[in-house]
């Protein structure tokens, strides 16, 4: 036990102290923050203040377009269309926005911006938003319909949810959205960590073998201790990294939000790509999301996430360790051995993305029972509150499988780690499981 602890400690400390680890751990959240920051900035980038001449031939605009710090609008109805195209530059306009009169109600008037430079996306969306309503109003007026009648006819539907026993449930759209987001995020984190840390275990085992330190090591400790020490040590590194990220990423998100947040909600509008959404709606939505995020039972989700992480990690890391021990100096040849392990991880990820859309389907059930998939699929379902017995059964199946995989892998490991210069076939790997020491 003491030796195992020494090995875990070494595996952990040598990795955590490495500058590559420190940089990856700190820079990843910074990088994510930077990514958001830059993408917000790029989207918001305009080539400066634009002066736009507005040619409103049909006098559709009841009041002038709102001028912002990006675009300055000036109605220039004194010009004819031809004149406008010639004159705008002389009066230091950047372009002409042409709004033709409404002639045919069946056609949406084609609004055109004439200029040498294109409009920025944000300015374009800004104009769109302002024009849409006004054109609609103009067309309603022209059609002779009463605006109020029309408003009364509008069918803004929201589906009311009731559980079968008649109790009214609260609105679930936002919570579904949040759960899906959280689900995909958790599944993705699981997928990445299984890959990254599994591979780390594999490389490290191969390295010990090729540098021959392993012979010295196992004259002091049992191969099983060496393998477990490594798996646990690397797993602890993984948990450390996830924990640090778990703390830093929300902080980064908060800081980025603070930077752009409430002062200019339309930044968020553009960022989320739902430009059509009203600013008010957006705010309501954000509030809802935050409320839903806080309403999730994190004290229940997080420990389960950790348990599934441990199960999935031990299951896959032990397989990677076995493959690493079978690899020789020729790394290329060993890579092919990793394929059978990599494929289920990838399938599990794909299944997970489907399952979050439909978290109570048969696929969701069976894939979260199958131990090779469950560590990625089940955490993705946690936010949808699947029945407890499903979680329990999935966890038990996973842990039992993980333990037996650790055992199987250690059987392969202890033989393969001492074998040099020999190509190892999958059949041999299988046979070693059953041979004695």
């Amino acid at each position, binding site marked *: 036990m003491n030796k195992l602890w020494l090995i875990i400690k070494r595996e952990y400390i040598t990795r955590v102290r490495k500058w590559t680890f420190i940089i990856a751990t700190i820079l990843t959240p910074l990088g994510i923050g930077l990514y958001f920051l830059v993408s917000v900035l790029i989207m918001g980038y305009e080539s400066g203040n634009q002066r736009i001449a507005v040619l409103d031939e049909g006098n559709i605009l009841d009041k002038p377009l709102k001028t912002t710090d990006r675009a300055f609008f000036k109605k220039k109805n004194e010009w004819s269309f031809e004149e406008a195209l010639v004159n705008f530059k002389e009066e230091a306009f950047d372009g002409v926005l042409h709004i033709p009169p409404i002639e045919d109600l069946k056609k949406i008037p084609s609004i055109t911006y004439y200029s040498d430079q294109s409009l920025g996306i944000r300015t374009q969306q800004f104009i769109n938003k302002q024009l849409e309503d006004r054109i609609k109003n103009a067309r309603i007026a022209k059609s002779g319909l009463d605006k109020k009648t029309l408003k009364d006819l509008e069918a803004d539907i929201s589906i009311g949810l009731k559980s079968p026993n008649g109790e009214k449930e609260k609105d679930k759209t936002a919570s579904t959205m949040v759960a899906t987001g959280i689900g995909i995020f958790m599944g993705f984190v699981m997928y990445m960590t299984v890959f990254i840390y599994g591979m780390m275990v594999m490389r490290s085992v191969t390295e010990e073998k090729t*540098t021959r*330190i392993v*012979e*010295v090591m196992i*004259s002091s*400790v049992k191969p099983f201790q060496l393998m477990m020490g490594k798996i646990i040590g690397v797993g602890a590194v993984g948990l450390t990294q996830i924990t640090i990220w778990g703390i830093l990423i929300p902080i980064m998100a908060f800081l980025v939000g603070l930077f752009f947040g409430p002062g200019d909600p339309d930044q968020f509008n553009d960022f989320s790509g739902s430009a059509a959404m009203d600013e008010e709606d957006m705010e309501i939505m954000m509030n809802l999301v935050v409320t839903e995020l806080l309403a999730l039972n994190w004290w229940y989700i997080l420990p389960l996430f950790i348990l599934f992480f441990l199960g999935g990690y031990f299951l896959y890391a032990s397989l990677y360790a076995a493959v690493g021990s079978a690899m020789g100096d020729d790394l290329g040849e060993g890579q092919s051995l990793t394929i059978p392990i990599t494929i289920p991880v990838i399938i599990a990820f794909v299944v997970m993305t489907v399952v979050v859309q439909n978290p109570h389907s048969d696929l969701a059930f069976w894939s979260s029972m199958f131990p090779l998939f469950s560590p990625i699929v089940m955490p993705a379902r946690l936010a949808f509150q699947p029945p407890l017995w499903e979680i329990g059964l999935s966890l038990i199946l996973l842990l039992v499988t993980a333990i037996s995989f650790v055992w199987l892998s250690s059987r392969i490991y202890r033989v393969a780690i*001492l074998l040099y210069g020999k190509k190892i076939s999958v059949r041999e790997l299988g046979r070693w499981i059953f041979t*004695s020491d």
Partner: protein
Amino acid sequence: MNILDLRNVVKTYEQHVAVNDVSLEMPEGSVFGLLGPNGAGKTSLIRIITTITRADKGVVYFNGEKLNSRHPAEIGYMPEERGLYKKMKVGEHLLYLARLKGLSKRDAQRAIDDWMEKFYIKDWWNKKIEELSKGMQQKIQFIATVVHRPRLLILDEPFSGLDPVNTNLIKDEIAELNSQGTSIIFSTHRMEQVEEVCERIVLINKGENVLEGSVADVKQQFKENQFQINFSGELPGMLEEQFQIIRSENSTIVIQLESGDDSNQLLRHLIQSGVHIDAFHEILPTLNQIFIKKVGGNSDE
């Protein structure tokens, strides 16, 4: 008391018998040569002794006790293929290996300090292994092997890759350890080293123990009754009619006696004939010759 006692040890890999019914005894405090061509099963045998693998059949006694999981702490093993964690610092690495052998942190620290002082490498503590030359790494490996004061030391080709100065340094340390009671198994192809250091040898070929005994006994066993005489003056005529002459040069002659013949008789004959004898000694086979004779063309190589 025997530090090691192997009885009918068998180890089979797949279809290949690596160790076939080997028995041997190694007295405590002796220096023991484990010889054999490549692929003879030396490494397999060592791995059984170091508990890295287990014998399929047979028993191994360590210091009178059946080999068990406490014994690795009393064994120091330096494999032929050396290996250290390249990224680790020298001091940490030694500390790690020593503690895995069961030393407390304090004892390990003290022992490592002593050894580093002895090898004049105190200032290496914070160097990374990968910054050291191969010979330097070898020294570290040696320290790692002996730091826990093992009762049994197993050295596989301990001098390969070392310059003569360091070879002597390590050789002296081995002798020193032996004089303090450490038993040593020495596995090598270099027969002149074996003759120099070992008291007893065992020769393994194709997994079998083909020869075992003290170096002197083995040599006696393989001697061919050849005598070399350095002389001055004239050799008696007709000598070749009485004795078989193997080689004859200006003042040196090598004579083969029949197995029953008495060497005194030869000497008497020569002296009586008036030749002046400068030196007279029996030619004992070198271990190298014995090795080749015993293994011959049967080696796997």
